[in-house]
């Protein structure tokens, strides 16, 4: 990556090409997407493109066909790759992609609903798949997916909310399971966004959590995931999204964060890394652009931070919740 002055603008066309070329970059062996992530990766790519105003930069039919190839007929859900067992995270990605591509009719909604509901545990949390790994990430995937499908009423909401409140820690944050340390991504974002969908933000100590989130910002402008850890571009989304749901995005320094995200770009090849100087990948490209959208960066499309999908898509489905990002600035 270039060692001259850090970038101060968003290289949209470079990032669009970067995502388009993900299929072609055979010499980019350091960049390794494994099968267990493929469907999620497509969702990250598509959402990033949508936020940058290039939602049709990838072939729609091919993408939808690929999603359907990930269908696990036995389980009634989607795996991350053809031949992989159904998993709740992949299933959410599939639903999100199909909705963004206006192809939800390709999916068996009832069977998928059944698959998701079958993963709810007696404690209220959700498992990821039949293997039984539990985590508030999977809880969020379930709540998000069921909400998108209009089937939220079929799950046990009380138990879910109860589990989330048991994950609340002394610092106002949330952990990945009961007893675990507060973590901006796998605790705070997923719990707060799930609560937003369930209209139960009363579970959140808004002031304490808002303060805890604002404390994630480091002197270089970047955000970390928990106290005294390193900054990472992806927290630009996790932290910012949670703050926007609490309507406290102004509590962080937007200019400094913007500067940090932009400096993590690869100005030649496109893509965004976890921090300046590191290798780019589609995960950080997506979350970097998502963070910039919430910050009101000019030229980007509004992102719904609760569902992490284009805001107009969510609005059309009547699912918009009371979040607030920064005003979109003029170019």
């Amino acid at each position, binding site marked *: 990556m270039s060692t001259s002055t850090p970038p101060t603008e968003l290289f949209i066309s470079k990032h669009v090409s970067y995502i388009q070329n*993900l*299929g072609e970059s055979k010499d980019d*062996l350091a*960049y*390794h*997407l*494994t*099968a*267990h*992530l*493929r469907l999620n*990766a*497509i969702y990250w*790519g598509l959402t990033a493109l949508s936020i940058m105003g290039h939602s049709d930069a*990838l*072939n729609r039919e*091919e*993408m939808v*066909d*690929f999603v359907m*190839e990930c269908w696990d007929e036995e389980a009634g859900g989607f*795996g991350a*790759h*053809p*031949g*992989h*067992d159904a998993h709740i995270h992949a299933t959410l990605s599939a639903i999100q992609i199909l909705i963004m591509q206006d192809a939800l009719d390709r999916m068996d909604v009832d069977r998928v609903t059944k698959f998701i509901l079958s993963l709810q545990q007696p404690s209220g949390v959700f498992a*990821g*798949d*039949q*293997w*039984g*790994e539990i985590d508030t990430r999977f809880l969020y995937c379930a709540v998000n997916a069921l909400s998108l499908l209009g089937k939220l009423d079929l799950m046990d909401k009380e138990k879910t909310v109860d589990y989330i409140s048991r994950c609340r*820690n*002394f*610092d106002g944050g949330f*952990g*990945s*399971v*009961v*007893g*675990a*340390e*507060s973590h901006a991504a*796998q605790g705070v974002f997923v719990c707060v966004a799930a609560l937003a969908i369930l209209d139960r933000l009363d579970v959140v100590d808004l002031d304490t959590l808002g*303060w805890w989130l*604002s*404390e994630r*910002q480091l*002197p270089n*402008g970047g955000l970390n995931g928990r*106290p*005294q*850890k390193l900054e990472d571009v992806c927290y630009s989304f996790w932290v910012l999204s949670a703050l926007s749901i609490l309507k406290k995005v*102004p*509590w*962080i*320094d937007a200019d*400094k964060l913007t500067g940090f995200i932009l400096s993590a770009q690869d100005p030649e090849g496109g893509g965004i890394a976890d921090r300046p100087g590191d290798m780019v990948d*589609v995960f950080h490209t997506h979350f970097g652009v998502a963070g910039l959208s919430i910050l009101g960066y000019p030229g980007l499309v509004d992102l719904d931070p609760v569902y992490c999908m284009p805001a107009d898509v969510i609005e059309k489905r009547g699912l918009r919740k009371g979040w607030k990002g920064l005003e979109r600035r003029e170019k």
Partner: protein
Amino acid sequence: MPPIGEDSASLKFSQKPEWADVVPVLQYENVNPLAPIFYSEEYKDATDYFRGIVKSGEKSDRVLTLTEAIIRQNPAHYSAWYYRYETLLAINTPLDVELKLMDELAVKYLKTYQVWHHRRLLLTITRKPADELEFIARSLKVDAKNYHTWSYRQWLLAYFNDEEDLWTGELDFVDTMLNQDVRNNSAWHHRFFVVWGCGVREGEEDRSRILKRELIYVKQNISLAPNNPSAWNYLRGILEHNSAPYSALKDFVAVYTVPHSTDRTEIVDLELPPPDKGAELPCAQAIEFLADIYEQECTREAALKATELWRSLANEHDTIRKKYWEHRIRDALEATKDDV
């Protein structure tokens, strides 16, 4: 015939005669990959055979060999983990042998969820948590803040809660970790979990005594390294948890909100440990805390004092959160505007 010098372990499954009866199932290649997998020939070979095994439903020793090969190349392959677990149970493999193997993989693949979930499953069957504490301590030597590792420890303690001995060394363990790095947020969180978050230990029923002990502990650590958000969060946490007022800490905190004093007393007071001579003062977290004390007094006069402190944070000591501190100022002034 394998080339001379090449041992069986490095052969692909397609080259091993003992696997000749299995029909490998190739990965679906016909769809134009939008986010392609870059995998080695060995991985492709192993997963082809994995799909063959899954199709036939075989559960045997060689399946363990195969799934281990996959996991070593891709520790996040959740299907392989699940099938391995089912196989272990189906063929009655001694699980402590499996755990030993997992010890090696866990250290190598610390940041993978699957490694830890597999361990949890095994422990619910072996029910031998004591050795696990030692294993977790070793893992933390490699990565002291690993989220999965700490979460696993919390799970273990909570799941086997009624085994009193399990908790005996826990406070000492946290202390050791904090001695190594007083800024380890995971360790502070764990301390809260151990003392306040998972039942009451025998002999610790007098909660006010425990609160006193913990206050001394956290103040000691703050005095050693004042600019440590984790310690201050812990202090706030224990006060809130016990509904104890912040105001009791006023004298302790005040010293940290100003530059080092030249005429310091050398008398040691456990209740009021002073800032370490090398510490950078004033300490932003202390200023925050003192401001909160004033705000809690709910008078206009106190609100103005808090405002002064918040202004110093906004303009000097914590400028990146300027807007947050300005919000606190507005809030407190609004709340006390009728108080003359």
